[in-house]
């Protein structure tokens, strides 16, 4: 039986993905085992006495050998049980699932929100830039996006926070007083045009939806600034690449409008590289945003994982690592499916 190429890819990739996840879990587990200290010592810190450390280690099972611990974890994992955090105590169970679920929701929320803004923006800018190549518009867009991607994300984040603070404080600074009055007033006016976005994105499970969007505005803006350049430039390059092909010249000679040439003729053949880059950036939105989370105090999975590594809460670290690895595998898979589906030669192989 001949499988549809899409189904074949999906099956193949899912199988490979499972193996990847397994390897990731082993690497993470051994990496944490090699770090100095364990949960009991990390939690008790300076005040640890040998007896309290031993009592705590026994309660959370840290006195068992690592190999045994790993296999009991993966055994439960195979049944879909993520286990309990080491922060659990008798009569007070905190499952990994219940710890991760709200954080994962927050991370996904931010990622989706950013993607909804950044992806159309990047594609639109890329297409227009390709259309008016070497124009002023093209140059300005290129320069601005390259500038924002070149700064580290925490810098972009702090600059945005600083702008919000400056709304209230700019007029009182020595810098403002040293400027000509008309300039100071217009800067102050410009600053106050920006809505007063919250610099503290601390949300919880009771935050209403629109409040969540409002609070996530600055983190989302930061991430948008960071990822737009990559996707936009790839869109522009892929389309330009197509525009030099003979069939585009043909379309032009037929007298089609430039916009139609780009959208109907060039773009369908340029999807594959664009989608790959988009997938890569979306994966980054989920697994790579810990710095932005810290700066805006946004409770996402990234912060959770850093916290868990610091306290050596192995089950939580493992679960976070698996979530991240699975995100990469799935997004890459989706990108490949789209590449195949948009390319008739791959979709109907001879």
């Amino acid at each position: 039986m001949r499988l549809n190429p899409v189904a074949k890819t999906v099956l193949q990739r899912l199988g490979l993905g499972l193996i990847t996840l397994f390897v990731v879990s082993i690497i993470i587990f051994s990496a944490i085992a090699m770090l100095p200290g364990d949960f009991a010592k990390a939690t008790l810190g300076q005040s640890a006495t040998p007896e309290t450390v031993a009592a705590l280690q026994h309660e959370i099972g840290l006195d068992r050998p690592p190999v045994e611990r790993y296999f009991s974890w993966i055994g439960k994992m195979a049944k879909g049980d993520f286990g309990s955090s080491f922060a659990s105590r008798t009569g007070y169970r905190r499952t990994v699932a219940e710890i991760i679920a709200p954080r994962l929701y927050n991370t996904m929320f931010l990622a989706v929100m950013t993607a909804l803004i950044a992806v159309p923006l990047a594609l639109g800018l890329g297409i227009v830039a390709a259309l008016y190549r070497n124009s002023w518009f093209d140059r300005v867009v290129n320069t601005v996006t390259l500038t924002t991607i070149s700064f580290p994300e925490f810098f972009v984040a702090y600059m945005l926070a600083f702008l919000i603070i400056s709304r209230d404080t700019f007029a009182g600074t020595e810098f403002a007083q040293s400027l000509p009055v008309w300039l100071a007033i217009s800067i102050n006016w410009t600053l106050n045009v920006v809505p007063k976005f919250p610099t503290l994105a601390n949300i919880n499970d009771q935050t209403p939806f629109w409040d969540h969007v409002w609070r996530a505005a600055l983190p989302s803006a930061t991430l948008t600034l960071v990822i737009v350049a990559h996707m936009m430039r790839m869109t522009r390059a892929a389309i330009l690449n197509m525009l030099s092909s003979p069939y585009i010249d043909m379309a032009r000679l037929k007298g089609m409008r430039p916009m139609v040439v780009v959208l109907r003729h060039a773009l369908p053949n340029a999807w594959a590289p664009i989608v790959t880059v988009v997938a890569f950036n979306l994966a980054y939105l989920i697994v790579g945003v810990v710095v932005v989370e810290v700066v805006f105090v946004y409770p996402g999975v990234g912060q959770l994982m850093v916290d868990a590594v610091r306290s050596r809460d192995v089950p939580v670290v493992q679960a976070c690592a698996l979530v991240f690895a699975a995100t990469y595998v799935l997004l890459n898979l989706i990108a490949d499916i789209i590449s195949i589906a948009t390319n008739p030669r791959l979709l109907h192989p001879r």
Partner: protein
Amino acid sequence: MSESEYKFRVAQSLIGRGKVSRRDFIHLGLAAGLTVAASDQIFVTVARAQPQQGGFAKLGMAHGATTDSIDPAGYPDTFTQTAFSGAMSNGLTEVDAKGGIQPDLAESFESSNGAKTWVFKLRKGVTFHNGKKVTAEDVVSSMRYHMGVDTKSAAKSLLESVSDIKADGPETVVFTLNSGNADFPYIMSDYHFVIMPSVDGKADWASGTRTGAFVLENFQPGVSAKLKRNPNYFKNGKPYLDEVEFIAITDLAARMAALSTGEVDYIGRADLKTLGMLKRNPKIEIIEVTGYGHYTLPMNVTIAPFDNPDVRMAMKWAIDRQEIADKIFLGHATVANDSPIAPAIKFYKNPEPQHRFDPEKARHYLKKAGMEKLKVDLSVADAAFAGAVDAGALIRETAAQCGIDVNVVREAEDAYWDNVWLKKPWCASYWSGRATADWMFTQAFAAESSWNESFWKNPRFNELLVQARAETDEAKRAAMYGEMQQLAHDDSGSIVLVFNNFVSAQSKKLGHGDVAPNWENDGLKMAERWWMAEA
């Protein structure tokens, strides 16, 4: 006095009780011949000085992790301590703003038998959040939670001297100690020793039912904790606030930004480097309190060369404490003198002479030890205290001028307390300090303490420690603690660099009385003690 002036006076006294609005007050002020700005200023000053009911305060804490829980065996840092111990719970005693000990859930306490037996009488009619009466049984279970072989409590060692606790009737608890301790009520004020309801003879911490000024409403570990006023709180009129939310903001810049934009009303541990900028904001007040916390460099006195008292003395003279206070702590620290007892603590006495940077003296002691040159390793990491690595660099420079070659070893931050502290011959360390001289000395300087970080065993010191603990004559105690501070200064292996200041910043909307120095955030009790001066 005209009628309008009189009304204005009356109005001033009513502000504090929240019975006059700002607008009405300004009207009266205008009638009495004042300008709008002047009466507004008076309104704010008076309103802030008087506690008033109501309001919702958002408090930004410098800590908070996803592993936090309401279990009093833990409470590793200011988030859990301020929210779950200070706001939600009570101990038997508490430390007041002057560093004195006050009864809290206890009504009174007294000792007998050479401070070996302590009797705490509980306040009558106090209830837990669920309405259950607080009995002696609850106190016994709550204390036992931190005792015994299998306890996981970080406060276990504090109760090691307790040989027995029993309830004597429903309102009296009797503690029996192995040896006399005149400061035992201070130990009961520790933030771990909160009173929890007893269920089947065991302390029930997991329900979060306590006695405190606030009831836990929502807690997301590592994110925030929201608490609302306990209407049946036993302290008259307290708490003033209706609601408080503790928000974990571990990033320094994020904390400063959140206060500047008014998203929180208070932040613990303000950024010292940008404090000057924050001070320019007229809506923000900065509070600085010299606490009990101190930064130390313990030398292991059982290992050469530190086994020689003259070498220790040379090291003590080879460090420029003032420079460290100015450059590392940017002036927000008080220079210490190799004794761990902070100026705010009872029986504090500054030993003579003040140790400062003096290459002559350092060389003199080095020569006395029979050495011309000395090479030592100093193990540091910022896990010990922020700035430890930089302090090491400064010490290397000053020591070099005394003929001492200090090799600063930068250790891993992870598991620092596990692998470096108490293991390396000379390292950096931090103590949050204790409320009494006895408590501090017992934990960090007593011969048998497992945290005797310099392994110092001075017979005279240890003899005095036991005597002073059981002594009830204040004058004699003062003399003994004076001598002990001198001994620590002259002989011990602990170099005490500076006492840290608690630097917090807050919106002027928040009102407060004198701020307690025993822990951060007004002795962890800010939620109970502070109020919203204007909504």
